[in-house]
């Protein structure tokens, strides 16, 4: 009884939080503070976290979410990753903590980064094909193999879950096993593994993953995003030649205004080099999460632009202008 009341109270609080976040977004936008993209992004990420949290407190057909997110990705590309993904917020907050401690971050070598980037598609393919393979192999050659598969790959019988992977443990805190207080610390994809295993694994696996993520994203910005299959599934339209037009929300670069100063390359949290290297025009790399840090930091007015369709909605400015105002 007490728990139910607490649950309802929690929901109301989330709703209130959502409303406040919404108002904040509008205020920030109106006051022209939208130039401070990083702050705006945090607000939207928090609002998105609250929204997911709220939605998932009701039983929901995952396929609907899947369709919504996939449909969104056709128009917005990986906007989801940069601005909405709660797991991204989690890593960004760790980055904030690191910045506060004045500790430098590490960069992955570009080649490794590119390799991980391509590995995402392999991971995605494996997860998507696995149900079919298992169906063909039915019954499994041995029970042992089944257990190993289940342990290693998580929810092979719920392939669509993969696409929502990073969000679930964060937005449905009570659904997984590693619960301390009322908060679940289990890791993306791990939650399903836990479903198939029990005992000591249930504690050790999530613990290892949590430690790895915290340490990893402390040292390397947005470490998970570099090989996240969810990101790959969202960006998959960017990969095909015929579909390059599809992400209506994209970055564009003006070659003549660029002095190749390299700031965009340095500030990018997933080390995208294309913005720097590309001669100009539409930037359609699927590595870019559209977090807009480069647009915010680019010191040449109008050199980088965020466009939706043909319309510019945000562009780099003489960023020295507002630096005094706060």
């Amino acid at each position, binding site marked *: 009884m007490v728990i139910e009341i607490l649950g309802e109270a929690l929901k109301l609080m989330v709703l209130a939080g959502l409303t406040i976040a919404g108002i904040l977004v509008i205020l920030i936008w109106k006051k022209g503070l939208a130039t401070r993209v990083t702050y705006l992004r945090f607000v939207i990420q928090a609002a998105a976290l609250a929204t997911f949290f709220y939605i998932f407190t009701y039983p929901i057909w995952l396929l609907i979410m899947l369709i919504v997110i996939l449909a969104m990705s056709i128009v917005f590309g990986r906007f989801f990753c940069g601005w909405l993904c709660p797991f991204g917020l989690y890593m960004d907050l760790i980055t904030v903590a690191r*910045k506060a401690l*004045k*500790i*430098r*971050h590490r960069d992955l070598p*570009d080649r490794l980064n590119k390799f991980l980037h391509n590995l995402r598609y392999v991971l995605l393919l494996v997860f998507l094909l696995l149900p079919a393979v298992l169906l063909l192999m039915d019954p499994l050659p041995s029970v042992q193999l089944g257990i190993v598969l289940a342990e290693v790959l998580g929810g092979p019988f719920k392939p669509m879950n993969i696409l929502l992977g990073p969000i679930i443990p964060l937005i449905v805190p009570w659904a997984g096993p590693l619960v301390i207080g009322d908060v679940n610390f289990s890791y993306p994809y791990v939650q399903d593994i836990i479903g198939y295993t029990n005992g000591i694994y249930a504690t050790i696996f999530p613990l290892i993953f949590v430690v790895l993520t915290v340490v990893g994203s402390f040292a390397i910005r947005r470490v998970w995003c570099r090989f996240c299959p969810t990101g790959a599934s969202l960006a998959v339209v960017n990969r095909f030649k015929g579909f390059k037009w599809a992400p209506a929300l994209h970055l564009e670069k003006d*070659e*003549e*205004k*660029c*002095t*190749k*100063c*390299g*700031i965009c390359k*340095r*500030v990018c949290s997933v080390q995208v080099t294309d913005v720097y290297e590309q001669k100009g025009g539409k930037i359609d790399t699927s590595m870019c999460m559209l977090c807009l*840090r480069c647009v915010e*930091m680019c*010191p040449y007015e109008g050199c980088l632009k965020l466009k939706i369709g043909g319309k510019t909605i945000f562009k780099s400015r*003489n*960023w*020295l*202008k507002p*630096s*005094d105002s706060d």
Partner: protein
Amino acid sequence: MISQQKKYMIEISQKEIEELRNSVKATSRKVMAENIARMKKTSKNRPKAMEYFDEVADLFGKREKEIQAAKESGKKVIGYMCLFAPTEMILAADAIPVRVNSGWYDTSKLGDRVVPVEVCPVIRSTIGAKMIGLSPYLELSDALISVLTCDGMTKLGEILSDYKPVWAMPIPRVKDLPQSLRFWREGLLTVKGQIEALTGNKITRKKLKSAIEKTQKATKAFRRLQELRKGNPVIMGRDAMLVNQTYMWDDITRWTEKTEALCDELEEKVRRKEWSCSLDAPRVMVTGTPMIWPDNWKLPTLVEEGTPQGVLVADELCSSERLLYDPVGVDEWTMDDMLNAIGERYLMASTCPCFTSKDGNADRINWMLNKIKEWNVQGVIYYVVRGCMSYAMEYTRIKKVLDGINIPVYYLDTEYTREDVGQMKTRVEAFLEMLTARIDI
């Protein structure tokens, strides 16, 4: 050994040095006064805030005494020859940065005694200035940062090391190789150590941060001034160039304040529609070899005092607009990222022709195209002094590009001398005449 025997410099008697210095100084004083008087005369509605810059422009005036006083109180002065030297680090170590390239015509003749006449006159003039101890900032500096950009600069550092400690900073000639930035960063760290050793002050994170913020503010003021030149001419190009150039030796905080004040006044003038010259004056951009105050002011003077009168609205000179246009963009205020930001700001954003890459020096072309469009430039004067190889050799490519967008470009070669002013006048005026005719059509 080194201190006793000079590697390059010739021996001149103290008496001769004195005589030469006094005579060149007297001429230089006259030239500075004359230049400023002419600038005042040409510009209609000259902003009052320019008075400060007229005063600071006096190389043997107030600023020299200030630096002298600062030195006596224990501060160090660090000179630099190319704009690649990390000013922020010098400021962070509580030293005074000054750029020491020389613009004196007379001393270039003296430089001929050390290096052949084929060498770029900027170099020869700086050598000459050192020979007779003319340049107050070169004399006052405790050490020099010599960035090995063009051939002249490379050897200039070597020659000046006869007098002072010179810290050479080798620069990668191809900017966008993966190893270039690493190499340059190592060089920066070395110089950081040298600055710390000389000044005895450690460059801490906090100090470096406040130094970066200081130069960012300066860049902000600087850009504001250049932005104002986009519209109808509210300030003459020469005045703006003088403002830009005084940054090389002035106190940076004060310079920033004064430039902001100047911009405020100019904005007021824009509102009142008080232009500094006729709106029909062709809008000209200069590119090429650096033009250094006080003597090497002949081209801007000829353009802005010519008949028909032109107005300089933009330039691509490392002594003027390129000096401070690019900011240090820091992502995270850690020592590491600040060093990266400083490194990138100086190396990557530069359009110096000493660089090449697989597209050649495409950055410079893009800079020019952008300037031409945004500043509404109608003609480009490609100014090269004899012996300035890198700029001279890039002309053909620039001309091809500018021909493509139908912008006339004129190659003007000259020397550090007053003798060719007459024939230059004819050439410049013919070009301006042509530009005016194009506008009429």
